[in-house]
């Protein structure tokens, strides 16, 4: 009998009305839909806050990557409160410090800088997903 290999659950910021939150979510969507669809799943923060059992279990039973919008770090905190552990944490503000040329503006729709920052962050997250997936493979080898 083989254990089921765990996915990487992406937990982005739910900050509606803030550019940082939008960058966080757009980055998560890009990883989920385009960059690493087979390896990742999405855990909406709102469902974790509401205590949705399936979402909490998905976070607790898989590998969690938190993508926080700001220093409040709600995504990281909710992973812990859901019984999970943050295997890798990202913060949009830190990503902006690494990519100062991409200044995000806009909320419902990001400006070009915001879209580029989300893409750059998505690439970083994808690399982290690769490393975490490799660790999973080695544990099941």
């Amino acid at each position, binding site marked *: 009998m083989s254990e089921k290999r765990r996915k990487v659950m992406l937990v982005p910021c739910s900050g509606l009305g803030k*550019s940082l939150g939008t960058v966080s979510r757009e980055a998560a969507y890009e990883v989920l839909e385009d960059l690493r669809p087979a390896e990742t799943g999405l855990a909406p923060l709102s469902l974790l806050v509401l205590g949705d059992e399936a979402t909490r279990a998905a976070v607790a039973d898989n590998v969690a990557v938190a993508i926080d919008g*700001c*220093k409040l770090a709600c995504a990281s905190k909710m992973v812990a409160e859901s019984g999970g552990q943050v295997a890798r944490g990202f913060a949009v*503000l830190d990503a*902006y*410090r690494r990519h100062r040329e991409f200044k995000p503006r806009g909320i419902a729709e990001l400006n070009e800088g915001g879209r580029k920052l989300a893409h750059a962050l998505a690439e970083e997250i994808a690399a982290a997903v690769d490393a975490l997936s490799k660790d999973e493979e080695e544990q099941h080898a």
Partner: protein
Amino acid sequence: MTDVLEFTLDKFKFEVPTDRYYSEEGLWVLPEGDDRVRIGLSDFVQQRSGDVAFAQITAEGATVGLDDEVAVIETIKVDVYFNAPVAGEIVAVNPEMDVAPEAINQDPYGEGWLAVIEAEDWEADRGRLLDPQAYFEGMKEEAQEDARTL
């Protein structure tokens, strides 16, 4: 221990230590003797500006006049420019500003200091600054105005 004036508005609490002076734009000025003053951002200004991504401070050794720019604070929301509250020579710049400018948000009156200025005429410049109570009253009005307009 330093006394602190506090103002709470909704979920926000703003602190104003009483051991220092303030410029109208929200820089604090702490006399350290020998005409030297340490400067930084008030709690209200750092909270209003948001998470600091970058802080650019005028270089050590430079001389600044009262209307000269001494710091630019860049957050995701805004770029805020600050003029020197005291004329003189910049004799120290907080090295943390290059590597961890979030110290401004985490500890605006302590580890988040910006620079030390050796004042040319501290007695004259002090007269242009606000005492803690005067800054506190103005800050309260600004915070309430912000709350009304947001």
